[in-house]
């Protein structure tokens, strides 16, 4: 999602609660958030407004919550999911947590936490600090330079 874009962000859901005191809009029940071709689906999405009243943060939770972005001139198609998806506008970053998974051009990443840089299309995956068995799984399709992917 690009919160600086002039394309509106559309949200559809079964119900919602708009809370002026907290500056949040909470959408629940079959939530779909779209902007252009990008699509996020979840059971619950909370939108946060910044000082200038525009959106600056989005938190989605689901079983799982999913995020899809089709191929564009800027880059390949991406599919990602996680129990929690957090989009932070000013950092142009989407964080997938808990059973996080990303697929991009045949490459797949699985881990407890995956950070996707929307502008650079760079994936950073990490395991859970408090679970020694938790590891990051990466599958890189041969024959392509995977220099822009890193994990720790």
């Amino acid at each position: 999602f690009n919160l600086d874009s002039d394309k509106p962000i559309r949200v559809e859901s079964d119900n919602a609660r708009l809370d002026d005191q907290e500056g949040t809009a909470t959408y629940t029940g079959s939530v779909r958030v779209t902007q252009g071709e990008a699509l996020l689906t979840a059971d619950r999405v909370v939108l946060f407004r910044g000082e200038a009243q525009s959106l600056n943060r989005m938190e989605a939770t689901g079983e799982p919550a999913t995020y899809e972005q089709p191929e564009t001139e800027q880059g390949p198609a991406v599919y990602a999911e996680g129990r929690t998806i957090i989009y932070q506008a000013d950092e142009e970053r989407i964080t997938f947590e808990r059973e996080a998974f990303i697929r991009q051009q045949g490459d797949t990443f699985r881990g407890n936490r995956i950070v996707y840089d929307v502008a650079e299309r760079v994936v950073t995956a990490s395991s859970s600090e408090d679970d020694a068995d938790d590891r990051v799984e990466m599958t890189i399709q041969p024959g392509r330079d995977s220099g822009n992917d890193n994990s720790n």
Partner: protein
Amino acid sequence: MKLPEWMLPAWLRDRSIALWGIVGVVLLGLALLVLQEDDPIRDTTATDLRGPQKPDGFVVNATFRAFDSEGRLKSRIRTRRAEQFQDENRVTMERPRAMLMARDGGAPWFVRSRTGLYRPDVAKLMLEKDVRARHSSTERGDVLILSERMTLDNNERIVQTDAPVTLIDRSSVTNAVGMTGWIDERAVRLENDVRSRYFNR
């Protein structure tokens, strides 16, 4: 032009008889007019003012105010015309304009419509036709809520409808079906079929 005396009939030559003759004719005409009138002349202003619904009481250009236990203004309703029907415990209102004060000194809600029905026993005002609720908050600025009907419940301190609603503020438009607004908590719940569009520019 004055006729010569010889042309006038004898009874007209004497001025006093002529005068009495004219007075007589005028009185006769008036008598006929009065007799011809089958209904007595009645003042209809009161009936017209009361109106066809024949309310028990009515007020033109009325203002109703409600206060809380500490004497603070809780709500004010203005209307062009209010008609009260005692037996049915209802007051109908023409073009009501309500102001609902938020308890913590937050911005009030302003609600208006073309018609309204007030139930004094439960302190509910049911608004219909072109309902417009306006509410401003520091966070979102002015929020305008449009619907075809809405109920203001001053005891529960909520604004409620089961009809389609549209909420407009300076950076988003939201449509839904059914809404509950908490006057004092500055929050709104949208019940079904929610569709929002956020404009970031």
